């Protein structure tokens, strides 16, 4: 158990940006919002699996939609109030413990909007350990958990509760509803019971804080230092896809992305690939560069950070291997 204060948020955000592998939305969007909420309502308690209260419900939450829209339509607190009210209505007797659904990118900060205001604890875990573009690319999905019920709310008090029969219909329903919700929604999905902690990636918040403090995990490799020489992107099927080229003194490295950086090749030789976390960092400022903020000519450092072990199992690899994304 430890306390997370508003002064820890920028560290958490920096680590989360690295774990985002270029995707997951820029945490900057939420940083000030959560900071302000915590300056009003106070710190949040982070607990481990063995500290979960007896009769609790583990609720993973995340923003879904287009992060760039939230840059213009700054979220309010109503979107979280509605979510909390609806979950409480269905589970009146359970103590709610929150959790980031996705630690990579802006959603590392999302649970704290709600946790701070209602004094709820946050579990030191998430569902992915990084960021991935699709709902089925998370640990409980691969372990065949049900996402029933799934809650969605918008900024105006609208709410939908879904009872999906299959995961692929969940992805489609969520996408359709998010468009109806003007591309900004908060989701609570893969809600878990106290005895289901084997379905989460444990220690994600601690890991993000460590990364944010500059403590890189073992086997982190600097792949290259160079400058961005070429950017090619397009919007395909609701995803931002394309590649970026980093020119070093002696070679060109191509990094392919679909929302996240998923594959890095040096002269046609793969040097990092999903589930490896691939991060591009502005060498001068240390700012993590997302696929939405790539710019020509910046001096960058290319990092390969190991993914959580879960993703190395054969059944998990089947879902997130670069071949799945039809890159190149």
């Amino acid at each position, binding site marked *: 158990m430890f306390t997370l204060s508003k002064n820890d948020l920028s560290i958490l955000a920096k680590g989360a940006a690295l774990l985002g592998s270029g995707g997951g939305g820029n945490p900057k969007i939420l940083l*000030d*919002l959560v*900071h*302000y*909420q915590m300056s009003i309502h106070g710190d949040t308690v982070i607990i481990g699996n063995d500290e979960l209260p007896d009769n609790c419900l583990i609720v993973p939450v995340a923003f879904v939609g*287009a992060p*760039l*829209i939230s*840059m*213009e*339509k*700054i*979220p*309010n*607190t*109503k979107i979280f109030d509605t979510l909390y009210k609806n979950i409480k209505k269905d589970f009146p007797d359970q103590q709610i413990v929150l959790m980031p659904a996705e630690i990579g990118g802006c959603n590392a900060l999302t649970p704290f909007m709600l946790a701070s205001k209602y004094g709820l604890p946050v579990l030191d875990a998430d569902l992915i350990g990084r960021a991935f573009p699709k709902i089925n690319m998370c640990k409980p999905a691969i372990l065949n958990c049900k996402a029933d019920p799934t809650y969605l709310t918008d*900024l*105006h008090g609208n709410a939908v509760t879904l009872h999906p029969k299959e995961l692929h219909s969940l992805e489609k329903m969520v996408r359709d509803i998010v468009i109806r919700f*003007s*591309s900004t929604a908060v989701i609570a999905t893969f809600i878990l019971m106290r005895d289901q902690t084997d379905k989460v990636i444990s220690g994600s918040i601690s890991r993000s804080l460590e990364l944010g403090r500059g403590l890189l995990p073992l086997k982190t490799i600097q792949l290259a230092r160079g*400058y961005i020489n070429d950017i090619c*992107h397009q*919007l395909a099927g*609701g995803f*931002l896809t394309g590649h970026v080229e980093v020119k070093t003194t002696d070679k060109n490295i191509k990094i392919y992305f679909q929302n996240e950086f998923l594959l890095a090749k040096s002269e046609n030789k793969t040097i990092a690939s999903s589930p490896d976390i691939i991060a591009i960092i*502005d*060498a001068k*400022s240390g*700012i993590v560069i997302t696929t*939405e*903020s790539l*710019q020509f*000519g*910046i*001096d960058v450092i290319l990092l390969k950070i190991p993914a959580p072990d879960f993703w190395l199992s054969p059944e998990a690899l089947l879902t997130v291997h670069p071949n799945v994304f039809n890159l190149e």
Partner: protein
Amino acid sequence: MKKFSYKIGIDIGGTNADFVLVNEDNKICAYHKILIQSNLEKIILDGIKKLFTCNDISPHQCSAINIGTTIGVNSLIELKSLQRVGLIRLAGHHPALPPLYQCRPEQRQAILAGYQTLSGGREFDNRAITKIDTTAVHKTLQQLLASGAESLAIISVFSPLYNEDEKQMRDIINMLAPDIPVSLSSEIGGLGFIERENNTIINATLKHVMQKYFSNLKASLEKSGIRCSIHITQNNGTLISINHAIQFPIKTLSSGPVNSLTGSCKIAGLSDAIVVDIGGTSTDIGIIENGFPRYSMSGALIANIPTNFMFPDIQVLALGGGSKVRRTSAGHTIGPESIAADIFTKSLSFGGECLTVFDAGNAINKSFTQISQAEAHAILAVMVDKIKNTIHSLPACEHLPVILTGGGAQNISESYLDKRYIRPKYYQVANAYGAAQAEISGHCDTICSLSQNRETILDELAHHAKQNAIANGANPDKVRIIEKRLLPFYYMPDQLTRVIMTAAG
């Protein structure tokens, strides 16, 4: 003698105003500096008259006066001469973040009188978030005025795409309180609510100081028989009218560094170079490509307030002519402290006790003998090493020549520099020369779908920007597109893209 053959460039900094007179061959005919102590308008008038009298030319031979200034930035940093701003947000969903949240409290206190969030704003597809409530405006206005607002800033959600709500609000305010200045966010910045709001608040708070210095300038010049066109340089290095600069002071905030970069290149006759501007306290290092500055990656911080303006990417070293030099067992260290403001009383060369870079420069020129030649060379070697190390760390410009400019550049003697380094004549007044040589621009900033007829649409927008430039007074024979930026809105249908074109000539 030909009519209209001269141009004047003026750079108004924190301490000095620099003046240059440039002839039709773009050569500097005269320059001088005036210490800013009294009334700025008088200094400008005196400075201009001095250029005329020294060169025996009459005012009607001058075609243009261009002014670059850091007045806006300085008043923001010093929190002086600011107007207190009343902010109206049209955002029916009520964002959960107060304005200027990242600012220091005293900054927020000095700049913001109060704010109100009202019904209004649009979704990305132009549906109203909530409808504008015109009856609430009157009450809000009374409240903001009562809390001390002297200038208003208005921001509506997605106004860069759909600006009708902001315009309607301005119309209502103009009827209720015709004297209060109004800044609309849609006329100032791109998408990104908080950054655009910050831009708009900064613009609103600076209107008064710009008005104070520049609103009467044209009339005063005319009274003295000077009737040529007067322009102010803006962030991208081109010119805007005085009235436009008073309406949009935020557009002038980085004109000082930009003039230094472009002016240095033009004096040296280059279009691609690294510019090292050595001042009294600091050295600014920036890159010029194709005649224009390389911009920084993220939006600029103006007096520590995040904005979405692109400013030149400048590395600042705490190293200048007035930097203190310390003798240590391992050799000399320079800076970061500087006595630039007191160089004439505190430096060794002027009988003071402080060893500075300036003294080392003097020793090498043999105008000062208290320190040995060997030591002077050792000090300058440290300085040059620091500059060279920074230059070597700049990405993708190993091939570029390096221009040394600014008052502190005099200290670096030729012997330290290989043939990559250039110190052009008149390097001391590069800023003012940059202003003199600036061109008149026209702008086109719009959002459109590029999924069909992409090239035709871009051509039309380029034409529009050129026409705007010509309407503003640009030379039709020289006008061309100098900036073309396409900012795609990811996740939006039909390749919706913000297109920014600037033409100049």
